[in-house]
């Protein structure tokens, strides 16, 4: 049987992925949800931006997520993969089913609340700093 080369599906080893690109500045993350080739760096060439995710809650205690569902659907149809955080966000938004990671994280948070770091004063040298991250 003669098989023509054009009839075979062509695979590229470098796939496209929808993932979070960190922008913003130090201690203030802001993510762009982008479609990129897997091998490209986070700050490298981007095929298309399909949304944004603000990881810092605003004064109403909301985290804002913008998603271009039309374009995400298109890229998924073209075989793009999703990174875990993006898949979690899509699950939270109702576009996809709930991601197992979200469910596990929720369960862990309910089991024990996230540990608070207590910084003790060093006697005679320095009082505790206000910044809880240090």
């Amino acid at each position, binding site marked *: 049987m003669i098989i023509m080369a054009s009839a075979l599906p062509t695979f590229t080893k470098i796939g496209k992925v929808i993932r979070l690109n960190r922008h913003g500045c130090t201690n203030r993350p802001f993510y762009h949800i982008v479609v990129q080739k897997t091998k490209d760096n986070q700050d490298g060439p981007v095929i298309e931006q399909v*949304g944004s995710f603000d990881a810092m*809650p605003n004064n109403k*205690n*909301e*985290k*804002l*997520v*913008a*998603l*271009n*569902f*039309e*374009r995400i659907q298109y890229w998924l149809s073209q075989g793009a993969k999703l990174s875990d955080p993006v898949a979690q*966000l899509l699950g*939270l*938004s*109702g576009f996809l089913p*709930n991601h197992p990671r*979200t*469910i596990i*994280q*929720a*369960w862990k*948070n*309910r089991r024990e609340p996230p540990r608070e770091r207590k910084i003790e004063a060093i006697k005679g040298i320095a009082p505790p700093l206000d910044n809880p991250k240090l």
Partner: protein
Amino acid sequence: MATRAVMFTIGKFRCFPILKNRVAKFTSSSNLLNTSTFDPGYTRDPSEVFFKENVQALLDRLTGRDYEKVFQNRKLGQRLEPPKYELLTQAEVDQVMVEMEVKLKKKLQMPPLLKEREPVTKILSKDAELQGFDNCKYVFIDISQGINDRKREVVVRDPNGVLRDASWEERQKMCQIYFPLPGRQISMPKMFEETHLQDCLDQGQYQFVLDRACAQFEPDDPDYIRVTRKTYNCIDENNKFSTLRSTRHFGPMVLHLVLCKRMDNLLFHFITSKEVKAAADLVRLFHLVWSDSSPSELDEFQLIENYIQGPAVKKPALELAWQTFLEIEKQRLEALSQQNKASN
């Protein structure tokens, strides 16, 4: 504006010297109208009435067409340009007038009177397994192109795992963040809070308040309805109807007053400024709104008299004004006929 030719003259009657003492009587009788209190609002859905063609036509006629006022250079923070003067033939002037008419219609498009919107209660999904995944809520907006803002999907995932449609306030905030409209702020400006709003209205800034409310809110927003009703009532109490004449807000104000049954101040204003056509239109509008039928009298004077005798609330002041107007009319006609005789 291409030319500055005088377009229309609103039929202003020339004041004869004999009539000056009559003008003083008008101003003293206006005190009769500011004493009583009316009920604050109405429960009827105004959109049933607002969108009818005959109502729209009447409101359009009542608004008036003062081209000078509509196309006035307003200080709204935009760059002002000096007027251009051009020399045109009559045909070109007519062409320009047609274009101006289209622009005028756009500027005088009335913001609709709607009833307050129902709060959003739709729940899309209840996922108890997601409780506690985060201690803040996630607000998702669909930023696909080409969707009307009112139909855009905005959903909220609460920390208790419930996925629901966003409330109207959340929805408007999100749409303004990602698809900003000019003149609109993300949160409500302080100007629309009660005390500050009262200050603005006391200064007489009615058109500014209404224009800004139009830019800031949707017409069925409870805040928009509160602000506009307060402004309309303030104008009615202070008899400042001429500030809104030939603006897009005059029509909705008139309809609001008719629905509240407090149009008598406005009728008084029309009679004292001798605008019989406008007064008759107002009475016709009253009949359309309250009895859903146009009255049978074709004569405008008869129409207004029947209203004053019948459904009017502030009868004494209106009767006085009407009688004074009829006397002036009679004297004017006599003077005119004497003039005609003298010239013949």
